């Protein structure tokens, strides 16, 4: 086969033409939103995407990414965001605010604004779901632990799976463990000292994303995690129960933000309005998704550890503006203390 100038030009033209295809698709009306991999992705693909198409004729394209990865990608894109909407936990949210990654948020553009409790929107985004962190255990293999301290005692410690400071739930849980031994919101050293004492007994030290799989495979039978992971594992037939620690479960809100420089601002608002609307929130609350709703008209599921969102005010909440600057050093310390 000869490779001449004419075929080269034809090839280049075809490739160049192909690059316009996404733009053509874009023009129809779409929004690219991030979602957490796993339950969030399933739920948003199955529930939210068809609703948005039906209501506003907008195609929802989902980019499954953990919160930290979203911030990393947006920072790397330098002003040309690869998606229109972020979904974030409190820690990465603050990193995003500091990095100027979000559009100024105008809550008045949300038709469902009145359905949210006061303070659930600000000038950077909107609360879309609540999360509750506590202890998950296998009731067929272990008695129920009462609190964070039990995790370091027999019989739980030899079946314990832990994760470090990479995620919100990991960091929050280690802070609470630390408080039991004289630590505080900004001092996690006591937790690391106590963990190191029992390290040879601990069943698994893994990445956050690997923990549900390790629990499912019986590699560990007790771990700190959120209610949603517990509900998802239960839905898969895994023997798992959630325990609210006696010192209190941890709670935080998941928020959504519009990426600075997005070309689909109006579509992004329509998407966010739909996400906090009664129809979507109600569907997301049901199994197998088990989200904690933020819409006042949507009741909480019966097996949740609280009866209403107001009750969550009494739960443990952490100030991530104080945690974020310390987290790099904590991760480094965790590496060194836990390394074999």
């Amino acid at each position, binding site marked *: 086969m000869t490779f001449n100038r004419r075929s080269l030009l034809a090839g280049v033209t075809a490739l160049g033409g192909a690059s316009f295809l996404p733009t053509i698709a874009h023009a129809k009306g779409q929004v690219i939103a991030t979602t957490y991999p796993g339950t969030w992705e399933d739920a948003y693909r199955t529930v939210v995407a068809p609703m948005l198409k039906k209501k506003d004729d907008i195609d929802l394209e989902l980019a499954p990414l953990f919160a930290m990865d979203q911030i990393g990608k947006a920072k790397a894109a330098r002003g040309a965001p690869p998606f229109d909407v972020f979904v974030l936990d409190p820690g990465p949210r603050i990193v995003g605010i500091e990095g100027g990654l979000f559009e100024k948020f105008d809550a008045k553009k949300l038709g469902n604004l009145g359905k949210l409790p006061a303070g659930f929107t600000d000038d950077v985004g909107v609360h879309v779901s609540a999360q509750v962190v506590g202890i998950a255990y296998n009731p067929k293999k272990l008695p129920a632990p009462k609190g964070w301290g039990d995790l370091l005692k027999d019989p739980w410690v030899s079946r314990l799976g832990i994760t470090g400071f990479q995620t919100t739930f990991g960091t929050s849980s280690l802070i609470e463990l630390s408080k039991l031994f004289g630590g505080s919101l900004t001092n996690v050293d006591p937790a690391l000292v106590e963990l190191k004492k029992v390290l040879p007994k601990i069943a698994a030290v*893994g990445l956050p994303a*690997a923990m549900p799989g390790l629990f499912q495979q019986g*590699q560990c039978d007790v771990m700190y995690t959120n209610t949603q992971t517990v509900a998802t594992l239960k839905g898969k037939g895994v023997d798992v129960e959630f325990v609210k620690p006696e010192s209190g479960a941890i709670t935080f809100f998941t928020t959504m933000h519009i990426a600075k420089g997005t070309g689909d601002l109006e579509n992004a608002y329509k998407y966010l309005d739909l996400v906090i609307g009664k129809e979507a929130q109600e569907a997301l609350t049901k199994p197998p998704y088990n989200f904690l709703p933020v819409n006042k008209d949507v009741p909480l599921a019966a097996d949740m550890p609280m009866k209403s969102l107001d009750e969550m005010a009494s739960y443990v909440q952490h100030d991530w503006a104080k945690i974020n600057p310390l987290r790099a050093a904590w991760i480094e310390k965790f590496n060194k203390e836990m390394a*074999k």
Partner: protein
Amino acid sequence: MSISTVAHDPSGPPSKRNGGHLPSGAGEARFWTKLAEWQLALPLSLAFAALFLAPLLLLVATSFFNDDKITEPGFASWVKFFGDPFSYKVIADTLLLGLKTVCATVIVGYPLALVFMDLSPRLQKVLLFIIIMPMLLSVVVRTFAWIVVLGREGVVNQGLMWLGVISEPLRLLQTELGLVISLTQIEMPLMLLPLISVMSRLDPNLRDASAALGASRWRTLFTVIVPLSAPGLVAGCLLVFASSTTAFISQTVIGGVRLIYLPLVIWQQSLVVYHWPLAAVASLSLVVSVLTVIAALSYLGRRSSRHLQG
């Protein structure tokens, strides 16, 4: 004019054949062949420069900043990384993991390649398909499958307990042994494919000649087959080493986070704490340390091949 014509026209245009600067005769023909080869290689070279060299230079530049906001140039990230003895441990562990995986793949893969040589062409095709099959699966799927195999309630532990060999499950997951076992399987095609490609070209008469001259099977193996298959073996070792030292998913999912290797440190610095200069230093350390071992391995390979020819 087609490019392929240029490639096969070593004489070049007559008007450019003199001038005193260019060599004449056979040398001139070689020059034009080289030039034509460069023209052919140009698109790939440009793509390589744009997609590999430019990002690499960007990585080097990023490493010379002191802060996570990338505003203050300096050497602080290098000083911080190499001023910490823990970094040396992580680099050494990463390289050792690669070497252990290479040893394991050679021990398991070489006999398999020998078996391959003795099979009929039809069975060779079947074995080749079996060797390639794992490559058709995503590495994530293969890695998670190893959790099921090596886990506390996995196939290995259940089997050993059923046989009465052990009474308590062995800890195989989140250990280096478990990680090396799984990487051996995951990286095996990278060892076997170059090895088989070289070994299948070996003249079968050489073995017969060796036997006829009175050499035992072991002596034939070590003095005839191993030296002749050295290029394939070295290529396999290089591929397995480079792939296993950078296998982030397998290292973190099967090894857990108590076994800390450079890819985990890079991930933490770049995507968890966003300290890109430090992540760049860790990445460059990985590139340089892996390339050093690869250079050493290929030097050994070349030396053994020269020794053979000499």
